[in-house]
């Protein structure tokens, strides 16, 4: 189960398509709490084992049973501390938040844009792939680009005669040239006597 605590959810339909969340398919795997109360927190704690990921609005408001806003800073903090102690996965989203995978914080628009592919992936494979929430369903392409970038970084640094010994370069070439082995590519570059600039240019053309 994925739990989303978002006190601003009622306005979300203005900015993103969230109508799909009403479908049973999604309804079964995601629980949206628009007006979280202390009682909800207690229930989530008791169902802790079922919650695989909790996503919360950064400036979450807490409500009472009459749906009135109450002072909730401390209760929310205690709840999050509990989740942390229980090693439950949590990500935080908010407006004007720079997405940071390491810190598990991301922009609210990005969160809702990527929520559907994330849930689809979860439904299909039963796996929490947080990268989808951060980078979208094309996160693999981004991983590919990141690997190529790292490869180029290494090419920049290394002596051209040593590049065949660098694992990051070999990995990058593997991803880029699926039909040839990395060593074949490197040997070809060496045969042609290419300099770093020319090699980087070839890589850019191949991407």
């Amino acid at each position, binding site marked *: 189960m994925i739990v989303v605590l978002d006190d*601003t959810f009622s306005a979300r339909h*203005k*900015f993103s398509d969230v109508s799909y969340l009403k479908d049973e398919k999604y309804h079964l795997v995601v629980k949206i709490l628009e007006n979280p109360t202390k009682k909800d927190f207690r229930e989530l704690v008791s169902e802790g084992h079922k919650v695989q990921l909790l996503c919360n609005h*950064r*400036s*979450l*408001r*807490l409500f009472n049973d009459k749906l*009135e*806003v*109450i*002072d*909730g*800073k401390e209760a929310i903090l205690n709840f999050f501390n509990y989740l942390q102690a229980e090693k439950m996965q949590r990500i935080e989203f*908010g*407006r*004007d*938040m*720079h997405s*940071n*995978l*390491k*810190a598990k*914080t991301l*922009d*609210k*628009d*990005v969160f809702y844009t990527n929520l559907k592919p994330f849930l689809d992936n979860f439904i299909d494979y039963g796996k929490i792939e947080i990268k989808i929430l951060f*980078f*979208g369903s094309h996160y693999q*392409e*981004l*991983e590919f*680009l*990141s690997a*190529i*970038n*790292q490869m*180029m*970084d290494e090419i*920049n*640094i290394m002596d051209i005669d040593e590049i065949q010994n660098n694992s990051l370069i070999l990995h990058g070439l593997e991803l880029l040239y699926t039909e040839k082995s990395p060593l074949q590519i490197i040997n070809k570059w060496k045969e042609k006597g290419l300099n*770093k*600039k020319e090699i*980087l*240019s070839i*890589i*850019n053309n191949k*991407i």
Partner: protein
Amino acid sequence: MENVCLISDFSDKMKRIALGLNIGPEYIISNQIHENEKDYHTWLNTEFQEKNIEKIIIPVSLSDDGTVNTNGLLLGLHIRLNYELPVSKRLIPIIFLTNFTVENLIKKNQFDRDNNSQNLIFTKGVYFSSFLIEDIIHSVTNAKESLDIEYSRLFLEKINIHRKDTVGGHDIANTWGCFKLAQVAGIKDKIFELDIISKHLKQLYAKFLICTNESYSPKTLVDLQPIKCTGKKILFIDDKSDEGWGLLMKEIFKAAGTNFVSIDSSPYKADDYHRSFKDFEGFYCECLSHVGQDWDLIIIDLRLNPDKEDIDNEMISPTDFSGYKLIDEFLKANAGYQIIVFTASNKIWNVNAASKRGAAAYYIKESPEFNYTVKETQKHYEDFKKDVTNCFQKNYLRDIFKRNTNLVEKIDNLPDTDLGDELKNQTTLAYELLKISSTQTQFAYAYISLYMIIELINNAFYKKTSGDRWIIEDGEALLDWSYGKNAKIYTHTNITVSTNKPPEWRKLAGIYFQLWNGKDHTFIHDLSVLITKRNGFVHNDKSILDIRDTDKKGNTIYPNHDIYTANGFIKLYDHIEKLIGYL
């Protein structure tokens, strides 16, 4: 490389570049991952204020987990839009480092639709280089400075930054309005220090607006003519009082000292980021508790409960706004209260409704949607100050209204209900005329309307009999009262007046001395002077109106000219009030 700065994550790659370019540690800016745009602004601004940076090198991808991104371009936008820097500093050449070609950079990345940082690539003063030292040296050496005059055409016009859909218009508008007014009121720095203000103004969207409209002045402007409000009691009601406005208004009305009261909304709000009300009723009740007190000026925000009253695409009748309801309560208690409506709403019907109800003036908080320069904001502020001064000048309305209420109570107890009704109508009419008076003639008309009460009383007390004799309440006939200037008393020669139309002052003297056995000759004399003044205006008799006198300093004064001002009305009112007291 002198004055060339490098943003570095201190990875081996960046260390090597710093070494290869011979950039000293004082010119290496440690890359920081911040949570939001405000913190990025603050960080970069501090670096630019501390260092003399002429060119800057920024990696396009700045991440701490190896995932490629384009965050460096966002830093570029923050530099270009840093209104706290002079334009020449904003325009320094930026050399972006990337392994990718520009084509791949654009094709392979997704850019956020609000900031559109990819547009920066196509602006002047932006250069790209690989991470190879010789490439960087070449780019840095060839990077040219841009001219200040090119800022708008070659940068601002080429970028496209939107307000994030999720950022509340009400929040931005209030922050913007507060900042703009603070700037021209000479208290920009104090307001800018508030986190609640700067968190909005340091966002790229606000920065873009500020730079585009040149609505930021690095200088601290001085308000050379602050509002004179010593001894004035001012009440300020705004749900955003705890978000800059309370502090701003306190500074604007500094001379009022502790007589300036801003209702603190914070105890009624939840402790969350939105600062939404958890107890709006409590806040509203506290506002109501000030109804009936002596306020020389009341400033009320129209929409005090934005969660319910500031909803996008929802039409709410202005009379349903909590601010409107408060105005109504204040004016029901005393129609003479001087109220200035504050609103971030640009809908004229909202302001009109408040004006129609009796608000004296309005101030529309500037919105980022309108392009006002600092000069225009200054004009806006001057208008506000004039409105405040006008309100202070009209303080007499509050006092007269109160006295009128007491007077009406007294009139209600009169045995002669016909006269009572006439008197009530006339006092109300005179007050209404006074309320709308702003020109000399309007004040004079209000005076004449009030004077009519004297005629109403005289008419009620006299019966004209044959031979033009004037009988007071079926009793004595009116005697020939006259005023002795030397003795300063009224006397008569026991002769009854037999004339078609005796002057009103003589009729009054008859009632006062003969019927009521009054002893205050000065009172009747003063009334006689006030009646004469009225005659002077009605008959355009300059010999009365332009009577001269000299004040204590020997200056020439025109005592009857006060008919053209509220003072004349008030003098007459003092006497009318006393006169009705005898009834």
